[in-house]
């Protein structure tokens, strides 16, 4: 009897510490109520911050979950934090409950065993997700395996001011020609900013006759040969950039200000609806439109992941599930709110939910799904790591 009591006493804390089971959704909901979820997400964009605040109000009202947006300047900060906590042995109640993540950060966290899961495909709203048409089960060629849940689709578009630039451009070569003819009218965010590295990737994908080589990890054997066209391109482009490439905008949204100020004529964006949203917020002139390249542009999904040591995993799953709800996805796609592409499949939705998407006015500067054309796959992350390092050596130190 005594021994049994001891055993029970020993087991009690264990069961309290056990992770919630995503398959048993009712118990997840029960556990989530009253939890506070610290969501580490990049905080440099006002529209995104507003959307996250709205999500917070909804999950509070519907599920009693408090959502705190921890505004990051760089997602890597959150990865470091979890890593440091693991090293310090803080395996429970870590500072972060959910991270807006993808690409290299996801790859390194998954590899280091820093993520909770798999949970994504057990979320009730996963049933609506478009698993065939959208890249939601691989993330920069890395298999997701349920360790992160998608919530938005992104695709590269170029924003341009029609008041200063007549026609859209069809290729990266056309962009170079324009910049040579009219120096100082184009720039891109400074790598390692993710949009800056995206520009480099987009350039490489567009310049290569056959970009499939990028889906395999970069090797010492092929890296130099494959990236040679990119460096040749940048050597010609850099002197013609805004400020002759001696200064760069720090982030993507910083380019919006440059267009509004008339400093540059076009800029890269990873969100097809960003231009329309920025026009509505007075950040861009209403003469701005968007275009994609003839061969198509890179696209990927944004995900949310839950650190292994989160103290509010149930709450985080509730938020992740809410982000996949048709209501939340339709709001995110509304160009007046956020303008992010949905990850849901329209044919899996109920008629009223689909109607909510159909009735959205995408706005003057947003391309329709047809106009967005074919999506190019993201290269394997190893390419980007090496390219970003080489970029810093070649162009990060202005002469």
């Amino acid at each position, binding site marked *: 009897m005594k021994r049994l009591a001891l055993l029970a006493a020993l087991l009690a804390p264990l069961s309290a510490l056990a992770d919630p089971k995503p398959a048993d959704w009712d118990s997840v909901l029960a556990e989530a109520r009253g939890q506070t979820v610290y969501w580490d997400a990049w905080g440099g964009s006002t529209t995104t911050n507003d959307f996250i605040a709205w999500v917070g109000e909804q999950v509070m009202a519907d599920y009693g979950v408090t959502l705190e947006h921890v505004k990051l300047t760089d997602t890597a900060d959150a990865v470091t934090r979890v890593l440091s906590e693991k090293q310090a042995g803080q395996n429970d109640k870590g500072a972060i409950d959910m991270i807006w993540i993808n690409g290299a950060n996801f790859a390194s966290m998954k590899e280091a065993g820093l993520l909770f899961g798999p949970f994504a495909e057990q979320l009730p709203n996963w049933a609506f997700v478009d698993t065939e048409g959208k890249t939601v089960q691989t993330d920069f060629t890395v298999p997701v395996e349920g360790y992160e849940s998608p919530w938005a689709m992104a695709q590269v578009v170029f924003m341009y001011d029609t008041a200063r630039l007549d026609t859209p451009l069809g290729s990266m070569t056309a962009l170079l020609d324009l910049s040579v003819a009219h120096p100082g009218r184009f720039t891109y965010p400074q790598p390692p900013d993710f949009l800056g590295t995206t520009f480099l990737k987009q350039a490489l994908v567009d310049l290569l006759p056959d970009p499939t080589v990028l889906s395999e990890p970069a090797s010492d054997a092929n890296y130099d040969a494959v990236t040679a066209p990119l460096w040749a391109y940048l050597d010609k482009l850099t002197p013609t950039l805004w400020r002759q490439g001696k*200064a760069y905008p720090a982030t993507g949204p910083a380019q919006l200000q440059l267009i509004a100020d008339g400093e540059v004529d076009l800029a890269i964006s990873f969100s097809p609806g960003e231009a329309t949203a920025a026009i509505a917020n007075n950040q861009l002139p209403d003469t701005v439109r968007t275009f994609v390249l003839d061969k198509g542009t890179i696209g990927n999904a944004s995900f949310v992941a839950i650190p292994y040591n989160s103290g509010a995993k149930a709450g985080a799953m509730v938020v992740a599930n809410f982000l996949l709800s048709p209501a939340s996805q339709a709001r995110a796609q509304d160009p007046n709110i956020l303008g992010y592409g949905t990850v849901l499949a329209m044919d899996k939705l109920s008629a009223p939910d689909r109607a909510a998407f159909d009735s959205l006015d995408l706005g003057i500067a947003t391309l329709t799904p047809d106009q967005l054309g074919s999506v190019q796959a993201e290269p394997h992350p190893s390419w980007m790591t090496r390219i970003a390092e080489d970029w810093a050596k070649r162009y990060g130190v202005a002469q």
Partner: protein
Amino acid sequence: MNRRRLLPFVPMATLVLMLGPVLAGLWGTILPAFGQLSAAGLHGPSLDPFRMVFATPGIWQSIRLSVTTGLLSALLSLGIVILIFAGWSGTRSFRLLERLLSPFLAVPHAAAAFGLAFLIAPSGWIARLLSPWATGWGRPPDWLIVQDPWGLCMVAGLTLKEMPFLLLMTLAAVGQTDAIRSMAVAQALGYGRVSGWIKTVLPRVYPQIRLPVYVVLAYAMSVVDVAIILGPSTPAPLSVLIVRWMGDPDLALRLRAAAGALVQFGLVVMALGLWRMGEAAVGYFGSMWLYHGKRGRYDLVGRSFGLVLGGISALAILGGLVVLAVWSFAGFWGFPDLLPAELTLTNWTRHSAGIAQALTETALIASAATIISLVLALGCLEAEYRHGLRIGSRGLWLLYLPLVIPQTAFLPGLQTLMLGFGVTSGQGAVILAHVVFVLPYVFLSLGDPFRAWDAKMGVIAAALGAGPDRVLWAVRLPMLLRPVLTAVAVGIAVSVGQYLPTLLIGGGRVATLTTEAVALASGGDRRAIAVYGLMQTGAALIPFALALLVPALVWRNRRGLRHG
């Protein structure tokens, strides 16, 4: 009484609370700098972290930038302050400049930097003012002004912000020299204003403002927020690199950050040494110049320079704040329109929730840190008064230590140590980290008026039967209401402006107006930056206004106390 037994220990406790985190942080920086990070399973000693630092592309440019921007902005701000004092002290223009510049002490660095950037960028307000009618520009010229590779824009921003600080420190120091009579004698002997002041007053003033000047130099060499906003990025100054390495998921970079922080520390020590040698050289040649007895031919030039540069600085900060205000109400505002196409409240309503939250957090941290600092400072001063535990000039050095050691050198180490000990970062930790920086300023601001209090009042009160505690609470503190409130205002302003301690020690979870404003700066949304920048400025300035107003109200019928 308990308090009587406690009081003698307050100075020691204060030193521990203030220097403990600095020394612990330095220790936490030194270990990983030599390859020891047991939490990550890395064991030193090794010089690899330093090798990694020096293998960074453009590292020498980064290092050079740290040194040149620091030395240049310290020289400029000190030079302008000297010219203003030498050329104009005692005049109406001086009082005007003083009144214009001193409130800017409270304007946080980040807000001032934003304002300056909006003002002088090729698409900024000055260019708009002149375009297109005078310049012919339909679009802004492709000129590298903000973020120039030499860091000149950053120097300008730092100078603007450090000048008011040095101005006030000099003002306090001049009061303790016999400046007016010295000047009268010098002028009677035919010396010009500027040369007379530099020859007779400066040699006595400088030793008293030496430490504040060192603070300015060390701060300018290691500043992060201003460097992010105004400094170059190809490459960035060393301090920015250190913070970036700190935030990298690759742990090897944590070692590199620590090594970089030590390099930074070494640079500051070297720059201080260089400055000290410069002082000696100036002293040597200065005394030769003094013996020559030349009466000064370039007096007018010096005077005009002082006034013009001082005036430009005041206008730049003021203009920056005005342009922030306009942006915060701006609808679409393209180049070269002088004003936005329409004014709107949207920017404010949209950020109101976030601001309310950040403001509460800021106010809570600032008041807690200031109250702790005030209690400790008063405790130290009272212990000095009752028990004669006086801090000498060496003690003054200790007080300045947290301000002279670059923040980037010990804050990352402190964060790593805290993690190692499993201390969860959060509000409490941030408050204690703020005390490290708030306390010296509160102490410096309170020390002189507290000591200058006429001790006869205490004797009279004691003769009437009041014990030492009652003298303190019923006589001394009420009489010192104004300096106490000023010290509180200084403390709050310092706390509001803290970026790095809040970011690193708060683990990103503690969002104050300053961390939010700098995070937004990376997004470049000027409307959001303006709203947060103005709130930040308000949070720092309003306590100063209250410090002026409250004593005036409380002592409205006690004329002798109104200026106390």
